[in-house]
């Protein structure tokens, strides 16, 4: 009798562990599915200057004392990256910003933007992450002009001063999707997907 209980105990344990493994695998699969169906590319919030509009021209003061006319037509495109020293995702994206600034230097200038009164915090942040190469603006009007609600937020302004692409960016892929959206002539990856859905016969997107 006792031996029967020992054997059944062990058999039941094995069954429990197999079930736990199966349930975990199923729940994990659901998680992966959620990631797959999540919106791709930079998420465009439905407010602020629209893609295609003229960008608002805002004069903003950089940490080094210069004043920049953000949004004015320029020889190159401008990538305006809104960040904050206390935003972990922003820090994660800094290497992507730097490499993008290097590889696209011919057509793109990168401008970092934040706000807050405590310039010292921002100076330390610039030093710690070696961001001296980029203009670092401290301007609340700039964030308000673009209706930045969540960080990190990126705006691509064309050389003609029009908004080329913008959105909340959480990953390197979403950041690159802004340039890609501009190359493809769509406002966002969401619009790209919507357009393909609306006109399946067209099959291709205007370059």
């Amino acid at each position, binding site marked *: 009798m006792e031996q029967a209980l*020992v054997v059944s105990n062990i058999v039941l344990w*094995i069954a429990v*562990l197999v079930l736990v493994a199966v349930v975990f695998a199923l*729940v994990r699969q659901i998680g992966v599915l959620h990631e797959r*169906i999540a919106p791709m590319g930079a998420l465009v919030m*439905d407010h602020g200057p629209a893609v295609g509009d003229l960008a608002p021209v805002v004069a903003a003061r950089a940490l080094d004392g210069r004043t920049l006319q953000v949004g004015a037509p320029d020889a190159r495109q401008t990538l305006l990256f809104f960040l904050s020293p206390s935003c*972990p995702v922003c820090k994660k994206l800094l290497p992507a910003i730097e490499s993008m600034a290097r590889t696209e230097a011919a057509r793109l200038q990168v401008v970092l933007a934040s706000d807050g009164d405590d310039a010292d*915090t921002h100076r330390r942040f610039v030093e710690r992450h070696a961001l001296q190469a980029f203009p670092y603006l401290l301007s609340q009007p700039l964030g308000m002009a673009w209706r930045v609600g969540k960080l990190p937020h990126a705006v691509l302004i064309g050389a003609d001063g029009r908004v080329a692409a913008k959105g909340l960016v959480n990953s390197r892929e979403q950041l690159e999707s802004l340039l890609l959206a501009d190359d493809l002539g769509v406002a966002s990856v969401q619009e790209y997907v919507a357009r393909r859905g609306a006109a399946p016969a067209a099959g291709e997107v205007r370059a």
Partner: protein
Amino acid sequence: MGTLDPLLHAVLVAALAALWLHAGIAKLRDLARLEGVIADYRLLPEALVRPASLALPAAELAVAAGLVAWPERGAAAIASAALLALYAVAVAVNLRRGRRAIDCGCGDAPRPIHRWLVGRNAVLAVLSLALLVPVGARALGWLDAVNAAMALAAVVGLYATLEQWQHNRQAMQAATRMEEG
């Protein structure tokens, strides 16, 4: 007052130690993120954020080691409950402030804070305090060793499953909110 069976006590110790070991290592692997997370909770003056980002993983690993290695593990059990209560309060305060979009800093993938975390930590704190209950005297045999190992594996697996389930739930809620605008 009753006693706790030595088998249950052993499983509880091992499971809590595994929890703290995992939490401590995950925090140490991305100290920059942890610093940002602590700053985002907005509970500490800025000067203390960096020391706290080093102290928390150190405390977590110390609790893990204390639970396993210390013959008198009451202190580690109390420290475990205190840390869990601290995190629960930090999350609750920020939920009360309406700051729901901040990263909880728990585990590997960033995830917004949620009242689930408060409840989870409360349960874990109670389990930590259960280690203070005197351990019953019973000779442990080989079958207890099998039971302990299997139970530990099952508890770890179920905990990971529950966490993933909650992660999915939050992802679903976020997607629903986005569709509604």
